[in-house]
């Protein structure tokens, strides 16, 4: 696959390390009243859609940016890629 890096253009996916669902960016409030339950969902419960999925890729053999890549898991079509650091807090919703 080719990942459209927002700064470096199309780069081979072999340069990247995959992490998974971008909901990992939505870390719950550790001081909230139901923190434990929320963390449980955050850590263990992920969607695994057959279709459009927002996911985290690390440009390990590149500029060390974390990207949020929007990919159709059925066709591998990539609909976009953003720098995670530029997304607003809780930006992965």
């Amino acid at each position, binding site marked *: *696959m*080719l990942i459209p890096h927002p700064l470096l253009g*199309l780069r*081979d996916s072999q340069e990247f*390390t995959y*992490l998974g669902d971008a909901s*990992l*960016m939505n*870390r*719950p409030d*550790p*001081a909230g009243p139901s*923190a*434990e339950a929320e*963390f*449980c969902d*955050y*850590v*263990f419960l992920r969607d695994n859609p057959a279709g459009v999925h927002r996911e*985290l890729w*690390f440009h*390990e053999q590149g500029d*060390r*940016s*974390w990207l949020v890549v929007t990919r159709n898991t059925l*066709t*591998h*079509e*990539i609909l976009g890629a953003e*720098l*995670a*650091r*530029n997304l607003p*807090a809780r930006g992965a919703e």
Partner: protein
Amino acid sequence: MTRLIGGLIDRTAPLSFSFNGKTYQGFKGDTLASALLANGVQLVGRSFKYHRPRGIFTSGSEEPNALVTLHSGARTEPNTRATVTELFDGLEASSQNHIGPLERDLLAINDRLAPLFAAGFYYKTFMWPRAFWEKLYEPAIRKAAGLGALSTLPDPDTYDKGFLHCDLLVIGGGAAGLTAALTAGRAGASVILADEDFRFGGRLLAESDLLDDSWPSEWVDRTCAELASLPNVRLMPRTTVFGTYDHGIFGAVERVSDHLPPSDEAVRQTLWRITAKRSVLAAGAIERHIPFQDNDRPGIMLAGAMRTYVNRWASAPTRNADDQVAIFTNGDGGHRTALDLLGKGVPVLGVIDTRPDAPVFGKYKVFAGATVTGTKGRLGLQAIQIRQNGQSTWLEAGALGVAGGWNPNVHLASHHRGRPVWDEDRLAFLPPKDGPKGMFPAGAAAGNGATSVALADGMRTAQQALAELGTTAGNIPLPRVTDTPDTQAAYWHVPTTKRAWVDFQNDVTVKDIALAHKENMRPVEHLKRWTTLGMATDQGKTANISALAVMAELTGATIPETGTTIFRPPYTGVSLSVLGGGNTGRHFRPYRLTPTHAWAKVQGAAFTEVGPWMRAQYFPRDGETHWRQTVDREVLSVRKDVGLCDVTTLGKIDVQGPDAAEFLNRVYANTMATLKVGMVRYGLMLREDGHLFDDGTCARLADDHFVVTTTTANAGAVYRHMEFAHQCLWPDLDVQMISTTDAWAQIAVAGPKSRQLLQRIVDGFDLSNEAFPFMACAALTVCGGLRARLFRISFSGELAYEIAVPARYGHALMERLMTLGKDLGVTPYGSEALAVLRIEKGHAAGAELNGQTTAQMLGLGKMVSAKKDSIGAVMSRREGLAQDGRRLVGLLPLEPQSQIPAGSHLFTQGAAQTMQSDQGWVTSSCYSPHLGSYIALGYLENGHDRIGEVITAANPLEGQSFAAKVVSAHFIDPEGGRLRD
């Protein structure tokens, strides 16, 4: 000899080769198949299941029959298609899948037993008795299965790999491929033209149609010369594009020197990963046959292949020059073969045309409305039975060409699961509409196979593909050509009660398909698996569509209703050697060396792999005959005097910025923000699920500058994790980090005399306990001005330091310390002694941080600060983890000289050894020379309350059981006095 006139062979370059030990002559430009045919050899192998004699069936990579073994010894290569094997002088080939000589194969008995081997044979036969499968059936089947045999010796050849990028990849260099490449090449696009053949031209080389009133090869040569002159075009003959992957990525194998005598130096094949913005699939078409009774005899081949052998290679398909050749066809294509044979002086028996209104194009006999209903000739065709107007006649024939129409070669277009589409006008499946993005089929591959149409289609398709890239490509002059007539009528198989082969390679007949139909295995997917149709190495290139048509007829459905089959990579077989890319042995993967590697080598150290690192494992001395002697000595030296160990492999990450302290507070479970400048703190990192992730040290060099260390194994993962924490969780923090592992050579100086030794190299630095206490760190200079960093940390439990200098000085520093410490008894120690020292001290390492353990289990639960948030803090407090009573303890076997293996499970003495009564497990184990006994670390249920108890450590895998006393994990100096002095 049946060599004809003309052809694209170099008669000035004769080549000699051997087949089954007999020597033959061929010419440069021949394939093994064309040379065998020119020598009158029709029988080249035995079929997979029935061991039927088989001959050459095609002239290309779709060949199901002519599989041979090339070379001998370690270079033996089985299952190679003779039809694509380029001839060279000295080529050694042999037939396969027979016992005894090819002509008298003992396993031909299988043919007599054919009724036993019907479709679904394996599924039906080997079901019972169940116990027989493993002992009897499977070994017997395995012995009989397969075609050629591997040498089982290491492959002596060299392989390579590489990466290419282009605007347009043109797959196939026939009529359409050549015009596509030239159109794009002239427009300035970067073009790769790949063809599996060693000569470009595709079927233009096989046909006799004139281009611009000359032989087609002249136009091909002119076009290739122009393409070769364009710097933006890369011509890749002998290159098979075998797979279409996502986003325009293709896999290709270039056979760099397979056409030359084997060599130890030359690269044999290169694996290319090609990234193309657009691609043109001009892979041509594959002719199909018409199954009829006994249609698998040597001498029966595709009519188009026959034209190729006659026109391109001047090889007649018969054993003797005066043997008659018959053609069986359902369209005009067969007539074309008859005309070309006659043109070369090959006697033609006639054309058997299934069409009642069959045309006549020349001076040959036409059997209109006729079929072939039988054949004779065990080792080569001798006679055919023709049925016409209800009458059957046997006629002598030395070869038979079969023309059943053409199947566009849609293989690469269906690698993304797109389904080929049936075209009733062309009687063929066309490439899928939802094929790979950016791929444009052209020419025969798109169903546009007539020469003039294919030439124009290549140009038009390239223009269309480049337009998507914003490039306008102009027209190129196309050669004049008069197309030969090419009508056909649907005719799929000649009905018979005997066997008519559909899939030659896996011996699947029309009867097998009928049986599958009867047994309700009707969907294509079931048909394939029940009969093994299309599941041989050729993936049924010459069989699938015919089988589909037969099934359609049986079910009464149309072909598109019956379904279609798609293909998977690779298009043709790819050797595992080339997929490996050529890196073998020591260079199978890259490895990392420490700055003192060369020094350790001179010392005679034994090395061990730790992840990608090569680390000195121990340093044997003269007279030491066992590694344990060496390691024991090294350990005792550290405890008594001073030892040196290269610890560069630990990951080092430089963390800076105004929010660096706050950031570290969030990624470490314990508090880092309160660390004073000039001090080091041990840190625990958790995963967000509350389990231990990694441990290391964190040194504060300045208010806004830290250096953290990670374990060797986790260096990359921790850095990635920290970048995730920064970029994805807390991008607002003003913190910068970068890996600096390789920049510093770091040497552990450990033992009671370490201060004394270091005092001899520091440039006036006060090392006293008051000035530089335990867990202090500083930047300083050593050895007359070399900048260095010093950390007073200890993994061994002794007074110890780690000193870091710029990596290029690591070697010299090690030598200097060795020289200056001679009188102190300085000893280098390796990773083995390092492990013993830390087990004696009860320090955690990878085995204790295995991803299933917690800070609490390690006895460090209090380090997980409740006063602040950090990754994993919330989840570490969940019930399941908080109530886990297992704790790290030391274990002393009652029998000091017996080693409790790591991984052993712990039980209360006398308790049943079951999952339910399991009390924990042993993580690390070694011999402690300090205690004179084996020792172990392990996690034990309520371990801290069981000090003194004797428990059982069991290793049921080897029937071992040990009685061991529970002790503190700190076998040595539990109060920590030594490292603080």
